[in-house]
């Protein structure tokens, strides 16, 4: 067991775990942040997507000892009272069915929007290529990302 101090959603948190424990299980079992989901354990399905330094990563294969920057999970995506534009768009388009994969979808899409605020369908397909939706909500996911991009740009213009 080793002690690690992680920055998660803006808070510094200490955990005492084995070095090879994936970040996913540190978040879920030790920090009780269960919004990040377990789907496959081999970085195929994207349910476990979080941000490290703003970049989307699959937390199920990232050992806690290799976490190199601040971690953002779905719970911390919108730090204040307001929703993230993607969360609003997800609600507007009534995207979820079972809802299990959606945190991962939103985290992948958020990383896309932070670097490309006007993504094409192809950009979205590429950025979300690592995220399965077993219920098949892909049509609505695409629409919601486009809608969120327009919020995002409006927010930027309004400062």
């Amino acid at each position, binding site marked *: 067991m080793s002690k690690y101090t992680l920055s998660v959603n803006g808070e510094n948190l200490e955990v005492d775990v084995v070095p090879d424990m994936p970040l996913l299980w540190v978040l*879920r079992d030790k920090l009780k942040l269960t919004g990040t989901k377990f789907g*496959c*354990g*081999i970085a*195929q399905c994207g349910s476990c997507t979080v941000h490290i330094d703003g970049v989307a990563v699959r937390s199920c294969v990232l050992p806690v000892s290799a976490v190199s920057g601040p971690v953002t999970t779905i719970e911390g995506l919108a730090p204040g009272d307001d929703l993230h534009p993607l969360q609003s768009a*997800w609600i507007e388009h*009534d995207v*979820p069915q079972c809802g299990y994969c959606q*945190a991962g979808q*939103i985290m992948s899409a958020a990383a896309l929007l932070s670097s490309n605020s006007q993504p094409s369908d192809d950009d979205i397909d590429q950025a979300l290529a690592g995220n399965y939706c077993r219920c098949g909500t892909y049509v609505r996911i695409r629409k919601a990302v486009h809608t969120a991009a327009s919020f995002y740009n409006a927010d930027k213009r309004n400062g």
Partner: protein
Amino acid sequence: MNSKKISRRNLFKVSAIAGGGLMLKLSLPANALEDGATTLVKSSELNFYVQIASDGQITIYAPNPEMGQGIKTTLPMIIAEEMGANWDDVEVVLAPIDPAKFGLQGSGGSMSVTRNFDAMRRMGASAREMLIGAASQLMEVERRDLKAESSQVIHGSGRSMTFGQLASVAAQQPVPVPEQLSFKDPRSYSIIGTSVGSVDNLVIATGLSKFGIDVDVPGMKFASYTRCPRPGGKAISFNRAEIKALPGVVDAFILQPDARSGKASMAFLEGLAELQGGVAIVGDDTWSVFAAKAKLKVNWDESAASTDQWSKMVTDARAIAAKGGGEVKLVGTSVPEALSDSNNRTIEGFYEFPYVAHVCMEPMNCTVDFRKGTAGKPASMEIWLGSQFPNQVKEIAENMLGVKQENVKVHGLRMGGGFGRRAVHDFAAEAMAISHKSGLPVKLTWTRTDDIHNDYFRVGGFENMKGAVNPDGKLAAWDQHYIGFADSGKPVIGSGLRGNELPMVAFDNASVRQSMMPVATACGAWRAPGSNTNAFVEQSFIHELANLAERDHVEFLTELMGSRRWIDEGNISALNTGRAIDVIKLAAEKAGWGRKMPEGTGLGLAFYFCHAAHVAEVAEVSVDADKNYRVKRVTVAVDVGPIINMSGAINQVQGSIVDGLSTMALQEITMQNGRIEQDNFHQYPVMRIASTPEIDVHFIQSDNKPTGLGEPALPPLAPAVTNAIFAATGERIRSMPLSNAGFKLV
């Protein structure tokens, strides 16, 4: 961190963008979702489903388990409509598991709407009458001059009182006699038929929604379970000392198989969910028990283990097809004569479909706290899980461990997918046995490999088809030989013909035979059981016959229906040929059927009837020289009667199209000496976003009873796509998945 506040400003922002069509609900904190009753103050209960607080907040209980099919939103909409509530005032809470109050709290067979529509209307109407009774009393006016709408009771004079003002007096009113209740005229509906966002969207989008896998119980430990890779095997011994010494491991032990857990009062669950032998590991966190599981060395007794071999099943099925015979299910008037008549044109085809897995995104899991009995206090158990039939797990506790059902409390949580998998509770039996043996509250979580290997699969199968068309281009004979699978002589769920397929129900020269091969691999209900494979075979073969007759497919198919009629008058589970013709024609029209298609592209049509739903689909496909194919668009026409939630209904259809495409294109489970050969998504992929077609959905809102939509839009997709590939290339595909024939979905 778990009580994120959402500002009013943001709520309004989102609502405004949604244009009023899709509504955002500010939900209760996630930890209160399950038992909302504790959060309601000064509320008045009008019936088991409806409570109204003095501030006007209306709480409606959603009785049935939610797995993504939208039922948690749909059923309360019916209640709210009938009581005259404003949907903005409604808070939906998942009902506790209590069959005495809420009836069969199950989700399966696309039956929730069908089964509950009238009951929900009664609950709403009953609440409405009590509110009107209260208003009559308080306003001192006649009942007949009052009406309920927008969460108010309004008098003809224009005076009104809000539901909140009326709540406490309404709760004292006599409960109306069900037979005397009247229902709203559908033309005055303001909630039913609109697009309402799923009530849990906010908690899902913010990561606060609680699934079974997210349960956290005080003192809880974590568990993994490892079965014999060959089903039916059991553990003799394992490297226990080594496993117990691993970091984070608390205990490890063998569980013996236990058939008692498979006893079930619901017929279709009987014999399933038997506890399989294996090794349990209990530890401090999920990772520790997964890591330890990977280091297990088990000595298995495989004397009774499965020897199933997919490659042998294929060989055997081909031999059976060549030999003919089988159990006769239906005899046509003159099938052999028509097939050998030299004036007729004949065609024969051998179809194959594989076993497939459910792969719910949330792997199976269950949390159990078993408490030993003490003097004067019986043994008890508390269970948390996502299940399509949560109350059924009580039977496992009683049959396997002797815990009386009245001492078992079940918490049904939102499911990260179901598709039929969460109708079977083998994982719950494992969690119960582990908690019982370890004496600890434990959460058992399956790895993805466990989830695939231990599935109750969609059964594979084969169909040998022969048919003839006469010189007039009409169907002259249909000969279908189904070669499927049986366990202990009984066809497994989804294997065999249901007897209401086309063309048999509408055509008298059809013969059907059935042969069954034994199988040890577990099979279960997979989204539209039976239908999802029979549609592929039958709707492809009808297209083959239409082509043989050089007829237009739409014309050939609608001609088969004959006159507009119920096949079994008034039975909604029987085909109605008029409704069938209407959806076929609508899908064809909307897809631009008959237009000239560019080279390498094609349109393909299929129709199917199941779950009381009439569905037709047209796929538009392009195929290149390397067999890369893209499904550009799918046009869907559906008749399930009136639609309750338009957004939810479209979502189910879109999802069914994607699911159907994913399955036909990519998925196959194979067995090698009993062992399932696919371990994870790298060997059992799910379709990714880039392959998603445009999906164009049209409803015919006939005046039939509203029926369910979780399953019936899936079966026609596969034949629509393969028929389109034929139109584009001339190549007939008779085997799924298409990847086996070198076709690559792009």
